């Protein structure tokens, strides 16, 4: 586990840079995590994705299917990759403060 500085806050992240305590997430943390994944500026479109992921996570406790993310936000997968160069899982989910999915995935 490592420490990560986001504005005035210090949060714990794992080896891949995923937030360890999802409760510590806020917009400042999101913006700082964006900087680690090639997203320097969080635009309205970024927030649409991040907010959907965040809401889904708060309701269900896990990350959604990528297909669900695409359907609900109306962004095709290639658009998600344009917004988040490291992809929906490593990029968007990380910025939204979700843990990395594990298992047969």
């Amino acid at each position, binding site marked *: *586990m490592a420490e990560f500085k986001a504005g005035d806050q210090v949060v714990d992240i*794992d*080896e*891949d840079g995923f937030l360890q305590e999802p409760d510590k997430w806020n917009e400042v943390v999101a913006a700082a995590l964006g900087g680690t994944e*090639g997203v320097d500026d969080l635009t309205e479109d970024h927030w649409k994705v991040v907010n959907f992921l965040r809401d889904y996570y708060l*309701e*269900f*406790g*896990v*990350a959604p*299917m*990528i*297909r*669900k993310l695409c*359907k609900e936000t109306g962004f095709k997968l290639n658009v998600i990759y344009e917004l988040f*160069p490291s992809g929906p899982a490593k990029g968007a989910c990380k910025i939204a403060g979700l843990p990395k*999915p*594990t*298992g*047969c*995935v």
Partner: protein
Amino acid sequence: MAEHKPDQMEFYKQEELQQIDLNPPKEGWQDQPADFRPGSWIYPTKPKHLESLGMPNPREWSPADEDWQLPENWQEIIHKKFKELLGKYRSFRIFMDTCVRCGACADKCHFFIGGGDPKNMPVLRAELVRSIYRNDFTTVGKILGRACGGRKLTMDVIKEWFYYFYQCTECRRCSVFCPYGIDTAEITMMAREMLHELGLGVNWIMEPVANCHRTGNHLGIQPHGLKDTLEFFCEDIEDVTGIHIDPPINKKGAEVLFVTPSGDFLADPGTFTCMGYMMLFEEIGLDYTWSTYASEGGNFGLFTSADVMKKLNAKIYAEAKRLGVKYIIGGECGHMWRVLNQYMDTMNGPADFLDVPKSPITGTVFENSRSTKMIHITEFTADLIKHGKLKLDPKMNDHVRVTFHDSCNPARAMGLLEEPRYIINSVCNNFHEMPENTIREQTFCCGGGAGLGTDENMEMRLRGGMPRGTAVRHVQEKYDVNQLACVCAIDRATLVTVCDYWAPGVQVTGVHELVANAMVMKGQKERTMNLRLEPLPGAEEKEANDGES
């Protein structure tokens, strides 16, 4: 785009990976410490997961650290566990005593073929443990020590175990060639079980184990999440077929409990396979149910220890009992069938409270599962097709030229070789086999089984996936194959990377995705899309023509 990192496929150049030096190192293997280079090892278990499971020595650590923070008496702990395992499993003692170093296994491991590291030869992998056995548990070893192949248990040995027993996918290809039938997977299982006594495990396995233990599946999907997911699939099914499905969940008194790996609920292309199961069951009117408690077919306990495997497997049977079903059908999962066919019966069975599986559609009794009461979905579907119970239009898959990857455990642990092929040949017109020494019981692993399919292990996944990937590329070049079918969720996740790297352009699919795309359902609308919501080739032209007119 930033520079690529060791956990990304793009970091590795094929020509560099393929330069494999097969010359043995000058110094003996006994004193070569493991090289923990990034890309070749897996992150350790997060302490919270060990705590939740009540397993030893939870702490923050990294294999790259010099100090692994082990208890002071770690040698004593390993010795005690080693002794216990030798007493418990006669097979383990035989595997420790029997090897004659004939070398038949040496070049059969995908990690050795793709990497050339001598310690990935199964004979030497076993020797990492066997040398300690000889030194500590045999009379001749106690007297002669190193002169008869014994080795002292040092910290370097423990580090080497951790490195190389998490470079074995427990696929058992080597065992097919061993004249004594030494099962390297079981040796790996013993080594991992000993390592767990010191708190040495990997997070890619233990987080799923903790999730499954708590929530019912590896991903940690909760009941309302599973319901939401299945309903999402039904929306897509309705878009494709016009048929509305209400998924049965936790339905008491259903005839069949259906259990599939939870990867099918999250990750493409497994999700399409899951839609395939649902469409099949709807079409034949099967009285079945999903469970939000037994919502995992896989069992990462197999990659952990006998106790954990037993505990996770028991959930499926407890749920079958609670719901009062007659028997269980299992989905397209790989290692689940190793657990089912080779351990379940003596671990949690026999499941006398269930009926011997009998197809309600054909009347076929599945004698092979008389004790476990659980059948593989391809057995069930092949039987339906054989009896003409499904209306199939293989032309719907004419744009697909498919090959079949025998998933290691269904092939080698249950002999499921014909059923998937029979199904594929019934639903596709273009099926091409890979070379014979790479399929059926000689199948090559995906390189990411047994809990190794995580991105930080990318170098080893690509190396281990090289034999399989090369065979795929062979049929791609020869027959223009564009899809690789398999019956395992780990395969569906890891072979995507293997194909993208070694045979780009080949997609991965499950058998029941192919089935559902070819199945003509009663009352369906004309299909213009496949399950991936991609327009079918004919439909695309039609759409374009309509646009012009």
